[in-house]
């Protein structure tokens, strides 16, 4: 097996590693990282001067790229009966998962919930006019950036590559020789892998309650908040989705996780994706597209 070219940079709030087999034209990896960086900065809510922050303040107009993302988010919102909601940003800010995670009071949660809900989004021309509502694409911006990066690689003729952005994975083609890429699913409780997926030309994303959480009085509070209740979604330890694009895998993993086991399975079937579900008791179940 030939040696791949591997590069890692820190973007999108995590590590982004790209592994490419075959000849790599000069400048391709730079272009790859440049595109990922562009999206990372554009949709970063942490930065007050990012496009998304300005959009949320009604300072700039909705551009074509963001309209595309919003349309996609609406699709997933509809499909998940509101479990996946890009206006959950305000709630995330309250819980402080990006800065100082803490348990907010029920009153604080109730108050913030009045600003959560895609149906509350208002526009004045092409600028946001719903004060207090925060559009947040972090539920799938990573996946989107990975897809855009993959597009750069494909356009430059690369036919065998693996992109890993903090556990969101997208593979191009197969490994040299035709073997599928083997992607493990992390055990949500403890070391090791619980399952190996063999994929080609696909994306794999996982939402889990073990990545970003805090514990208080013996209860785990994690970052996958249910926009309908204001509290972390219960029902799963982790959800892994295999899809054609990373954006889809990313969004659906979050949507299914928040929706819970019953609705989650329905979502996977309706979206026609393969999903590996590990429920709150650690039981693993797989859903396949075309399975009834």
């Amino acid at each position: 097996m030939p040696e791949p070219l591997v590069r890692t940079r820190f973007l999108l709030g995590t590590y982004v590693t790209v592994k490419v087999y075959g000849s790599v034209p000069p400048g391709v990896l730079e272009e790859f990282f440049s595109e990922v960086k562009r999206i990372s900065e554009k949709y970063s809510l942490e930065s007050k001067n990012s496009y998304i922050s300005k959009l949320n303040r009604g300072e700039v107009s909705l551009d074509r790229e963001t309209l595309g993302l919003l349309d996609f988010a609406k699709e997933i919102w509809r499909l998940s009966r509101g479990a996946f909601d890009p206006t959950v940003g305000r709630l995330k800010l309250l819980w402080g998962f990006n800065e100082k995670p803490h348990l907010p009071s029920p009153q604080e949660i109730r108050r913030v919930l009045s600003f959560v809900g895609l149906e509350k989004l208002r526009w004045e021309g092409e600028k946001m006019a719903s004060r207090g509502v925060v559009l947040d694409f972090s539920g799938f911006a990573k996946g989107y950036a990975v897809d855009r990066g993959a597009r750069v690689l494909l356009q430059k003729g690369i036919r065998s590559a693996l992109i890993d952005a903090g556990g969101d994975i997208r593979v191009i083609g197969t490994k040299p020789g035709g073997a599928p890429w083997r992607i493990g699913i992390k055990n949500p409780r403890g070391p090791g892998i619980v399952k190996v997926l063999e994929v080609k030309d696909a994306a794999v994303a996982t939402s889990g309650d073990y990545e970003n959480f805090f514990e208080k009085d013996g209860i785990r509070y994690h970052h996958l908040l249910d926009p309908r209740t204001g509290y972390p979604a219960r029902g799963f330890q982790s959800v892994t989705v295999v899809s054609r694009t990373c954006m889809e895998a990313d969004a659906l993993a979050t949507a299914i996780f928040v929706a819970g086991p019953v609705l989650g399975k329905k979502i996977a079937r309706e979206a026609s994706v393969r999903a590996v579900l590990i429920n709150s008791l650690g039981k693993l179940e797989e859903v396949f597209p075309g399975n009834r």
Partner: protein
Amino acid sequence: MKRREFLALAIGALGASAFKLKGKGLKGSIIFTSSNPKEALKRLSKEMGGLRLIPADEETRRLLALSGSWGSGTRALVFLRELPQEVETSITYTGERGIEDPRKRYSRTYSFLRREGRGRYLVTLVFERASSGKARAVVEVEGRRAMEIDLSRDGQYEVMGREGKMTLEVSRGKIRAVESSCKKKICVKTGFISSPHEKIVCIPNRVIVSIEGSGLDGVSF
């Protein structure tokens, strides 16, 4: 089918699957016939305290109706073929020194497989050594390889990251971050990792600790 022809087919099957194991070092193999290989493998896994079966090729995958690996426990490559006719039960155990008498060491699994009776499927199970060579963790800082840690020796290691210090601990072949200068300590909360491509990541420090090894190309989390 004469016993000699059968053995030739069995060894041929072993040879075909051996292409994947070159240089890895075999621990042993079991070859047996079965009328219901999927069921037999499930039972065998139970008898042996857990097997993680990895189909050796497309045909095996197809016959077992498996899309990836299955189960957990000792890794075993499984190579399955349908024979042109049913054959009498024939079971061969091969250890590191050649063909072994199963009644001495594997009496339980042997008697289970014997009860299987006649079968149309030839199953070859090959057990790989846990690791050919020492298990190692690699520490990357700012995208560059900074340290290699031998996981066979318990110990503590210090890593200088972008913002400060991280302390890693190796214990019984696993590694974890016990301390870190970062605020959120997500790296510490990750706990122990043990499988190739599992990672402990500290973003503020720009540190990635991962286990070296083949078998996987990535881990989704």
